[in-house]
């Protein structure tokens, strides 16, 4: 942050990347290979952290109820494990299964629409 207490977005993105990687890799995920998407989403999370003090998912609603909102703190994979394993990505697409090479081919399906074999 500069002396005015305003966060440097690139610095914060770098540190979030460091912390998140350690959390998602043991879960079988990785950052999306789509670098533009990754950078965009991390930037949104820095903005959300600036607004609310916590890096929330940029694609899920804040309910202003702590118990519910904790479930969308990034990385929110543990709270949506089955759903995200089924679609091989997290909802906003920041993370994908470690073997995914083409993240564009992963549709954004809600839990009800995923075919369970």
């Amino acid at each position, binding site marked *: *942050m500069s*002396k005015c*207490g305003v*966060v440097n977005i690139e*610095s914060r993105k770098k*540190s979030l990347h*460091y*912390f998140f990687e350690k959390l998602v890799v043991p879960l079988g995920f990785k950052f999306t290979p789509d670098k533009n998407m990754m950078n965009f989403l991390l930037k949104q999370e820095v903005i959300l952290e600036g607004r609310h*003090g916590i890096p929330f998912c940029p694609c899920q609603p804040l309910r202003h109820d702590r118990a519910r909102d904790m479930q969308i703190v990034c990385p929110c994979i543990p709270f949506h494990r089955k759903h995200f394993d089924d679609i091989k990505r997290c909802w906003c697409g920041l993370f994908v299964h470690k073997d995914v090479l083409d993240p564009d081919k992963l549709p954004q399906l809600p839990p009800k629409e995923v075919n369970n074999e």
Partner: protein
Amino acid sequence: MSERFIRAISANEIAPGGMKAVELNGSEIVICNCSGKYYAIQRRCGHMNAPLEMGTLDGIYLTCPMHCAQFDITNGEALSGPVPSDIGHEIPPPLLGKYLQNIGILMKQVRTESIRTYETKLKDGWIQIRL
């Protein structure tokens, strides 16, 4: 800034990943060991002065124990501000409630500043800090 490096502590007093608070010539400093490299930062959090050696060090990132502000120890940059506390849904007694409300208003005005760093040198197994 003077050219003087002052001897602080023996290098083997801090294991990798660890931190130690020292006071040198009136300055409160925390020395961090990041994978064998030593960094020195001001002891007091740039948010509300909490002692940073009581926080957690992960790589080059230090998290303050009081409100979880995070800093890059290589350059002192404040990376994030306080994380809001949750005091639950219970309605507090009136005096406590008013106190918490006032504290909340004041804390919204508190900035998280970047922290000062100090140059370090390792000599003959001792960590030296330039003051």
